[in-house]
């Protein structure tokens, strides 16, 4: 069956075109049409094109998604293919998170031990962990108890559970910030723009009680009040704590929390590119070498 089909198909492909279709081609011409028919055809074509255009325009009409200010691309110090994160900035960002964001936002997936070798040495990280009280247990009597944090503990959650978080924030749940840079379109550009983009609502926009206007937020009304202002905290390294500096540092920190492997990945990128630059030309040369025998042989057919 397949063979028959293949044969038929091949036959159709290989058949020499006969003259009939060429003749038809010659017949299909506007030359013989009357002027009225030409105008009619033209009108029909124009109407069809117009109808299609109107349909397309209606199809892609303004959608609510477009009413959002897209964040500009910012020149992060880690944007490049081989650029690492700025660890001094991560450290400043950690303090911003701890003193500002952590009041409402959790960061459930980062443990204190992960800060070692990134922004703290081991003793500093232990001291940092010991500042928080962690619920542990049960003890011998089956009761839960509180103890100072250890390196293996994760960042504390400001609320007991989601419901408590919602109840404390007008029903809006402050998202967990661990992977927030990965979870939002625009990544750290978006977070930065959001943190620094609060402004008065334009005329005609009603903002409900308990929400705030932010042009970068979908819908414009965000439940989080502006959190960063100039000089709300003091940096230990003396960097001026302007609003944009605070936002930049906390964004770098959030970038690190969502991609703790960031620096390792880029370190491997260098190795990968260098290794490939070495191997690829050699592989091509070796292919040419092996093929030279095949390509330069002569096949001689003899008659016996």
């Amino acid at each position, binding site marked *: 069956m397949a063979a028959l089909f293949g044969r038929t198909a091949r036959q159709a492909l290989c*058949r*020499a*075109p006969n003259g009939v279709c060429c003749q038809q081609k010659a017949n299909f011409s506007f030359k013989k049409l009357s002027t009225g028919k030409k105008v009619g055809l033209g009108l029909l074509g124009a109407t069809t094109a117009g109808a299609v255009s109107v349909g397309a325009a209606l199809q892609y009409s303004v959608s609510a998604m477009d009413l959002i200010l897209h964040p500009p691309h910012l020149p992060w110090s880690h944007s490049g293919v081989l650029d690492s994160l700025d660890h001094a900035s991560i450290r400043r960002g950690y303090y911003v998170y701890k003193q500002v964001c952590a009041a409402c936002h959790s960061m459930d997936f980062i443990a204190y*031990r992960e800060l070692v070798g990134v922004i703290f040495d081991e003793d500093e990280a232990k001291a940092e962990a010991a500042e928080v009280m962690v619920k542990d247990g049960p003890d011998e009597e089956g009761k839960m108890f509180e103890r100072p944090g250890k390196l*293996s503990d994760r960042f504390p959650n400001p609320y007991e559970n989601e419901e408590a978080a919602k109840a404390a924030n007008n029903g809006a749940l402050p998202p967990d910030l661990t992977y927030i840079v990965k979870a939002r379109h625009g990544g750290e550009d978006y977070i930065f723009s959001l943190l620094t983009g609060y402004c008065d609502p334009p005329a005609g926009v009603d903002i409900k009680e308990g929400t705030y206007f932010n042009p970068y937020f979908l819908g414009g009304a965000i439940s989080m009040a502006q959190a960063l202002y100039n000089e709300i905290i003091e940096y230990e390294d003396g960097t001026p704590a302007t609003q944009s500096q605070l936002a930049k540092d906390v964004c770098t920190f959030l970038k690190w929390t969502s991609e703790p492997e960031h620096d390792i990945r880029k370190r491997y990128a260098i190795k990968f590119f260098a290794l490939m630059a*070495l*191997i690829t030309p*050699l592989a091509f040369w070796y292919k040419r070498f092996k093929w030279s025998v095949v390509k330069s042989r002569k096949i001689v057919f003899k008659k016996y």
Partner: protein
Amino acid sequence: MQGVAARSSGLAQVLKATARIVPSKVEPLGAAVIQESLPFIEKPASKTHSNYALASQLPPSGFLNPRVMSGIGVSCQYRLAHTDLQVPDFDYYRKAPKEADDSIEGDNNRKAFTYLMLAGAGAPALYGTKTVITQFVSSMSASADVLALAKIEINLDEIPEGKNVTFKWRGKPLFVRHRTAEEVDKEAAVDVGSLRDPQHDTDRVKNPEWLIILGVCTHLGCVPMANAGDYGGYYCPCHGSHYDASGRIRAGPAPLNLEVPYYEFVEDNLLVVG
């Protein structure tokens, strides 16, 4: 030709009317032609021998001069007899004669170069493979959060003398016992030969003041009670095993002494188990 046509009958006639074989560079013979053929214009032999150059020396294909035709409703089969094709010249691929060195030395040099190139690609490739495999294999080892919990730090200042404190370590109870001088002397004086699982007290402790053992009865895994039993050490409430103050089995069904985990004293008052 006529013979072929005459022998074909039935379906064969529909399939193929005639077959003919013509020299490739010669204009097809006129005999059984149904469609008109254009005269074939021979092109001058090409100097290069690329696929394209060689192919362009063949008779052109097109609907008036088909290269291959066969099948239902096809009137003519057209074959090329490749007896007059010249063998291409492959000198283009060859090394220039002056480069060729037929001496053994020259041969060795050329081979050494080739193998050097191969080794030069092979060593980095092997390194890359090794790195990738190491990554995958190491992903099977314990993850960082498990390793972080594998060790426990205990501040010994908080444990007064004569007291046994229980910690949770790797999901099991860990006993840390601050032994009194009498207990130390008593356990050290026990005759090893009289024990079910003979082990001297000094083999079970690094610092005689501190006994660190897993609180899991070696009989059926209950948690023994501290400072109880006939030998002043531990007593398992499940089936009545008595352990002494060195965690050694003295009476009851348990076969072995309580297990001593790996531990070390980092500083004078800081114990790390695991």
